Structures are given as C-alpha cells and as structure tokens.
C-alpha cells in the first residue's frame, strides 16, 4: 500500500488523502480571501488607512523565508529520490528552520499589534488581518509538525528512492502553506 506508483500513473505526488485535505484548506482560504476582498470594496477608506499600520517589511521577509523553505523541501524530495536519506534529512531540517524563522517574525509582528491594543474586535480590517494571518500561522505550525514527523522517519531510515510517498506527502502540504501565503501577502499587505 505504501509504495509510490506516481511516476507510471501520473497521479498527484504523495498520498491522495493529503490532497483532499489540501483542497479543503485551499477552499477555506479562497473563500476567506474573497470575503476580505469584497469587504474591502465596501470599506475602502477603513482598509486603506488600517493597512498603513502593517509591517510590510516583515510580510515581505516572511514571503522570502517561506519560499526558501519550500525550495529546501524540493531539495529534500530530490535527495530522497536519489536515495540519499541523510541529505534529505538535512534539507528537511533546514526547511523546518526556515519555518521557525517565519514563526518568530510573525510573533514579533503579532506582538507589535497586540501591544498597540489591536485585536480581532478593533475593526473589520484588523479582524481579517488577524484572522487570516493567525489561521495561516497555525498552518505553518502544523506544517512544521508534519515535516518533523517526516524528518524523524527519514532519519530512522524509513524512506528510500523506491518508497518515499511520506516525504512527498509532507512536501505537498508544506507547498500549500507557501502557496496560500503567496496570495495572502499581496492581498493584505500590498494592494490598496
């Protein structure tokens, strides 16, 4: 049941179950994004004014961090396909490290907002900003947990070139977390 057959079948990388989860998550984020966009259309001034209080450098830096960690995950998959579990583990660890950097930057950003007295109930813009980024924040944590589980199994020799569905599964989820942030950043931090 666990051997990967994707190359001859052209199916999705990793376990199909994770893809059901990924599609569900994308649906939620998609609806959330559109809710933001259309609420903004009704409150343009409020949104534009509130957006000025966001830390755009932190947002951009986090985009770079996530993209890089995604790239590391790609390298991890490549490594295991080359049957190099040790290198796969190194890349995964680097990706987890980048994910942690994301969390630190984000917590710094949240701390800044909370100490300014901003909460979910401040106004519609900050409701969306905090909801979307916190929801995504939790996904990064979940992604790190998944990558860590994959890392542990990789270290104990659980994956090989012939059998690495688990790595692809974790990688697919992590790329989804990255993908969502790629839309979130311009939508919430940039467009006005």
């Amino acid at each position, binding site marked *: 049941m*666990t051997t990967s057959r994707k190359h001859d079948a052209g199916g999705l990388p990793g*376990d*199909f179950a994770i893809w059901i989860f990924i599609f569900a998550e994308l649906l939620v984020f998609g609806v959330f994004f559109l809710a933001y966009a259309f609420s903004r259309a009704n409150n343009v001034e409020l949104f534009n004014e509130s957006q000025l209080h966001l830390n755009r450098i932190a947002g951009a830096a986090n985009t770079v961090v996530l993209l890089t960690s995604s790239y590391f995950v790609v390298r991890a998959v490549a490594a295991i396909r080359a049957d190099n579990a040790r290198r796969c583990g190194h890349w995964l660890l680097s990706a987890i490290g980048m994910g942690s950097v994301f969390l630190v930057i984000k917590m710094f950003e949240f701390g800044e907002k909370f100490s300014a007295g901003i909460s979910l109930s401040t106004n519609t813009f900050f409701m969306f900003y905090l909801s979307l980024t916190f929801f995504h924040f939790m996904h990064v944590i979940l992604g790190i947990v998944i990558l860590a589980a994959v890392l542990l199994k990789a270290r104990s020799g659980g994956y090989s070139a012939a059998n690495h569905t688990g790595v692809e599964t974790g990688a697919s989820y992590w790329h989804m977390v990255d993908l969502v942030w790629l839309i979130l950043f311009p939508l919430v931090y940039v467009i006005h």
Partner: protein
Amino acid sequence: MSETFTKSMARNIYLGGSVFFFLLFLALSFDTLGALPKRDNRQNITPQVALGKKVWEENNCLGCHTLLGEGAYFAPELGNVYTRFGGSKEAIMGFIASRPVEGIPGRRSMPQFNLSNEELEAVAEFLKYTSEINAANWPPNVQG
C-alpha cells in the same frame, strides 16, 4: 484511482485535522472570553438579575419564547421585549401577572405562573439586562 491512498494517511488527516481545528476553536473562544466584558452587559448583573434568570429557567419560558433568537417559535422574541414595551418593567410585570388561568378561548395563551411580586420584578430586570446585551443589532426591528 492510481494514486497512493492509504488508510493510515486518511486516519492522520482525520486526527490531525480535528485536533487542529479544535485548537483553533479554543483559541477563538479564548479571544471571545476576553472580548465579552465589553459586550455582554455583565456590569448590570445584580442578585435581582440572577433571581430573574432562575425564574426564567424554572418556568421553562424558552419552551415557547425565543431569547436572542434561541428557544421555541411559538411566542414572541423576548430579548428586546423591554424595548418593545417602551422601556417599562411595570408593563412586563403587568402582562405576566394578568394571564388568565384558563387561557383565552381558541387562541394561544401564556400560562398563569403565579409569580410573587419579587419574582415578577426579577424577571423584568433580567429581561431589561438582556435587552442591553450587544447582540450586533439583532433583532432587525422592534417586533423581534
């Protein structure tokens, strides 16, 4: 289906997904608890309001009425009855006290609960407190 689709991964999605979303729910609920003092009119909860809520519950008022939209749909919404009755506790007390024991022929009627004056005042005070909860402008109008 030519993809790999394992039961163990489906189980992980189930366990991980439900834990994840339950934690998120807890986080939001925690935030709600912090935001409530500004909305739930707790500064006006007096021993009289507490007694009023008890009278409300022990006569199963929710078995006919809604309160902030929750309950049975047989009788009018009471979350805003204080407003509907012109901000008069006396009007509320008078209404409850004057229900005929045998009902009104052919029509829906509220039972006669034989409440003491203290209980009547307490219920009215409870309904006044309820009407001052910030319920996001619900109901849409005074008719409830």
